[in-house]
């Protein structure tokens, strides 16, 4: 055999390519490849097309999260069957000695393993019974693949040593360590309960007294660790355990802890710690000391106060950038109930310069403890001297100022929309586009002008609304959302937009009704019997050719210490003078506990003697309807029945307190003049040039390309939960005609036959205007 073959033999290359990659017995060909670029090119293309080559390169390039991906070790996935049993857990369990007790998973040293508690970066935490002492323990077993790794063993041993050195009720107790075995393990106390993170997930923000109780205990545990010369370096809610039934907080996971003087542990580009709770010095990759833990503790307390981490961003890197450069959103903007002095403490903990933080965890513990006593017994125990200056003289004034400042920034509007099967945001079509200016004065007329000076500086309060003083403790119990709602309206401009699905004689006419909702807050009503402030809105319906005007008044009333809303609704024909003395009337009460106002047809209220009061004989009892305001500001109107033969129902959502920006409609005008409107974050509507809805889709997947609109078609009939199917609508760009659209599911086969692997991933470009 020649050492080199000079002729190019493609067949030979094909054979070679298919053989074992390590097999180099065809040395002449290999030698030929040294020099012949033509054959190399042939071989490469024969192996895979050029797209696959670049795909492979891109796909196999390690990403930031591959390394940190603990998903394959996830204990949480055990519910999903065998293929998911995390290999790391399985490996640990496989390494156990068999147990005599069939109910146990195995045995490790003198411990009978009864379950898996969780998985950490270094290994698996098992639940076990110490047979000698008959107590339940937690055993952290080092992952076998790490156990062969000297550095990892060292780190594991260090964790054990660090944690064992700290004896404190708020630090997880270490019972014993075995670092000599094939699989090193650490025996710790078993805490029945969950992590602080779990509680945050469950409850959101915590009450001040709870924040102080937890903060004080972490500070105590931290103080004990710091006294041993340790820095925990990974203080975060996941590492703080709350024991069930006992008010004890335990600091755990010293996996990253290290002695301050441990010189061998300088950074080498690895990031230790959870980015969200890192200190600025940690984020910068600098050496850290105890003050770093104080910053992290501050971030934890911030999270407990606000329900969210102080620094949020798309990537770990951006989070760290923010920790270094930015201040978090002030706590009281997110939760005005947190007292100023606590905000002061957290601000100090989160000082960028560590010199500005508390001198020690011990000092912090003493302070938080004193605060806790004060909060638990406000009359018997004063707030610590050092914090008293931070206490506002008028707690409420400050509170109002904060909210006022927030509200001042913007002009508000309310968008109402329906999220039925068809959802849309009503806007003027192109023909009406130019008339927007003309429409504006009309809108302003409807929105009741309010005293801007007042409303800008101060939000609406219950005492203002009800015209009387309310003791603070009752005030605290009153719900905020109706106030926010009204206040939002108070400052609103323009009209609300409300889409509806209309039924005629009980038959669904498909997409149909468009209504315009206008209204606002009035400081003074005379019309409805009790003079005073209140909220009104009116709806003209249908929009194109209004037939009816609905006017709804909402008046707050204080009964003892419970707020009720009296609602009065009126329906009148458009063009007829709207007066409370004719038309249909509804009356009802709104108890804040239910937040639903049920309006029932009644006789005309507040009719003056002598005036012929028209009884609501036309209105039947079934025309009762409900308005519900949800805690998140959503507004739902059910059972709306403006006439015997037509009905309107659906779920609407009101978004209050957000600055209103006129949507840029031109950006979404299709070639035929159709417009795509976003009806909510999740819903999109296609409206023709007359403002008539044509099609709707969920927003997760919507787009348009020339004469194709693609999106999810929502299937609601006959199933409990709406199901989305990806599909396309075709549109004739000349006539504007929309063909009904196509669900991709049944067409998958056809597409596949056309060589399209993955119909769901099609770009419209790939589909073309027709198959």
């Amino acid at each position, binding site marked *: 055999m020649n050492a080199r073959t000079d002729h190019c033999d493609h067949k030979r290359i094909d054979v070679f390519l298919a053989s074992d990659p390590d097999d180099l017995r065809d040395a002449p060909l290999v030698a030929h490849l040294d020099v012949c670029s033509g054959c190399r090119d042939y071989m490469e293309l024969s192996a*895979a097309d050029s797209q*696959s080559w670049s795909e492979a390169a891109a796909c196999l390039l390690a990403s930031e999260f591959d390394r940190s991906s603990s998903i394959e070790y996830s204990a949480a996935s055990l519910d999903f069957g065998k293929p998911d049993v995390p290999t790391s857990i399985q490996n640990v369990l496989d390494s156990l000695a068999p147990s005599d007790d069939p109910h146990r*998973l195995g045995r490790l040293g003198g411990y009978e393993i009864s379950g898996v508690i969780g998985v950490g970066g270094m290994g698996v935490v098992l639940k076990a019974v110490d047979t000698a002492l008959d107590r339940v323990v937690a055993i952290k077993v080092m992952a076998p693949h790490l156990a062969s790794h000297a550095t990892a063993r060292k780190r594991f041993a260090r964790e054990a040593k660090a944690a064992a050195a700290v004896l404190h009720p708020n630090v997880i107790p270490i019972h014993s360590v075995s670092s000599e075995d094939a699989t090193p393990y650490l025996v710790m106390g078993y805490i029945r309960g969950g992590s602080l993170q779990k509680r945050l997930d469950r409850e959101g923000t915590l009450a001040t007294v709870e924040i102080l109780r937890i903060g004080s205990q972490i500070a105590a545990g931290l103080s004990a660790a710091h006294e041993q010369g340790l820095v925990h370096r990974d203080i975060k809610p996941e590492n703080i355990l709350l024991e069930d039934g006992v008010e004890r907080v335990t600091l755990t996971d010293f996996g990253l802890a290290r002695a301050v003087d441990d010189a061998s542990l300088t950074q080498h580009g690895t990031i230790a710690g959870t980015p969200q709770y890192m200190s600025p010095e940690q984020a910068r990759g600098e050496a850290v000391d105890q003050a770093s833990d104080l910053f992290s503790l501050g971030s934890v307390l911030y999270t407990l106060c606000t329900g*969210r981490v102080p620094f949020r961003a798309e990537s770990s890197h951006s989070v760290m950038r923010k920790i270094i450069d930015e201040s978090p959103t002030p706590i009281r903007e997110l939760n005005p109930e947190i007292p100023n002095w606590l905000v002061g403490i957290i601000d100090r903990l989160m000082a960028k310069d560590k010199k500005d933080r508390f001198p020690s965890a011990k000092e912090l513990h003493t302070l938080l403890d004193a605060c806790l006593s004060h909060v638990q017994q406000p009359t018997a125990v004063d707030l610590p001297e050092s914090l008293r200056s931070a206490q506002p003289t008028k707690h409420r004034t400050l509170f109002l100022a904060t909210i006022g400042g927030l509200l001042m920034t913007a002009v508000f509007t309310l968008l109402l929309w329906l999220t039925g099967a068809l959802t849309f945001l009503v806007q003027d079509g192109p023909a009406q586009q130019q008339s927007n200016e003309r429409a504006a004065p009309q809108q302003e007329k409807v929105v009741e002008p309010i005293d801007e000076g007042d409303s800008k500086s101060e939000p609406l309060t219950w005492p203002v609304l009800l015209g009387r003083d309310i003791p603070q403790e009752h005030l605290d119990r009153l719900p905020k959302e109706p106030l926010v709602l009204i206040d939002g309206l108070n400052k609103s401009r323009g009209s609300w937009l409300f889409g509806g699905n209309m039924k005629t004689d009980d038959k669904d006419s498909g997409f149909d009704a468009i209504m315009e909702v206008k209204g606002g807050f009035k400081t003074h009503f005379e019309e409805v019997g009790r003079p005073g402030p209140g909220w009104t809105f009116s709806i003209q319906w249908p929009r194109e050719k209004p037939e009816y005007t609905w006017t709804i008044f909402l008046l707050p009333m204080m009964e003892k210490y419970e707020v009720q809303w009296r609602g009065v609704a009126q329906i009148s024909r458009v063009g007829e003078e709207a007066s409370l003395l004719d038309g249909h009337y509804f009356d009802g009460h709104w108890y804040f506990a239910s937040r639903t106002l049920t309006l029932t047809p009644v006789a005309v209220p507040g009719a003056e003697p002598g005036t012929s009061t028209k009884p609501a004989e036309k209105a039947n009892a079934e025309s009762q309807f409900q308005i519900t305001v949800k805690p998140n500001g959503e507004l739902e109107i059910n059972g709306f029945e403006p006439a015997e033969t037509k009905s309107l129902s659906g779920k609407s959502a009101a978004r209050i307190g957000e600055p209103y*920006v006129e949507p840029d409609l031109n950006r979404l005008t299709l070639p035929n003049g159709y417009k795509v409107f976003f009806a909510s974050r999740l819903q999109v509507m296609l409206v023709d040039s007359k403002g008539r809805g044509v099609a709707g889709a969920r927003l997760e997947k919507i787009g348009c390309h020339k004469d194709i609109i693609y999106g999810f078609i929502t299937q609601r009939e006959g199933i409990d939960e709406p199901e989305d199917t990806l599909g396309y609508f075709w549109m004739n760009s000349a006539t504007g005609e929309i063909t009904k659209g196509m669900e991709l599911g049944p067409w998958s086969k056809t597409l596949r036959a056309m060589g399209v692997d993955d119909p769901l991933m099609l770009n419209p470009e790939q589909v073309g205007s027709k198959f």
Partner: protein
Amino acid sequence: MTDFPQTRSSLIAQVRSPEDREAWDKFVVMYRPVIYRMARRRGMQDADAQDLVQTVLMRVAGAIQSWEKSGPETRFRHWLRRVARNAIATAFSRQPKDAGVGGSEMLEWLGEQSATAADIERELSQESMREKYLRAASVVKLDVDSDTWRAFELTVVNGQPCDEVADLLGKSMGTVYAARSRIMRRLREQVQRLQESGP
């Protein structure tokens, strides 16, 4: 210790056909890391990302019943993929609960929302592809000498010039070219296999 305590979700246990069960298992194995990585890329912490993975999978699992009722016109794994994609898109396009419809962001939102949805779809497709390649690589890697693999990795993935890599590994240029093409071919085969059998 062959029987690790498994509590198959009762919902999953309702998937009667063994073929569909297998499809479900494959689906979970494939999609879990995909969803996890997408979550991490959005700044979620490990635990949050894992929770999100569970939420999505539970959602999909919860929908299985409705599929079984709907009858066998659609193949299970295609149905599964569609539902999963919806669930993932929903999970990632859902904004944090404290954010309303951003007023001042309305414009941005109008302009970007469709792009975002398309981005998620694209990202999901990319991540699924990545997962297939990663799996394929882990299989192929085990079958070949470490130098053969390195020749592929360094030149294709890290983009180093072939002559440099040949020097580094002490191999001839022809050997490096041979290695990377043959591995590429095997990778393609594996990826294709995963595409055909996978979810």
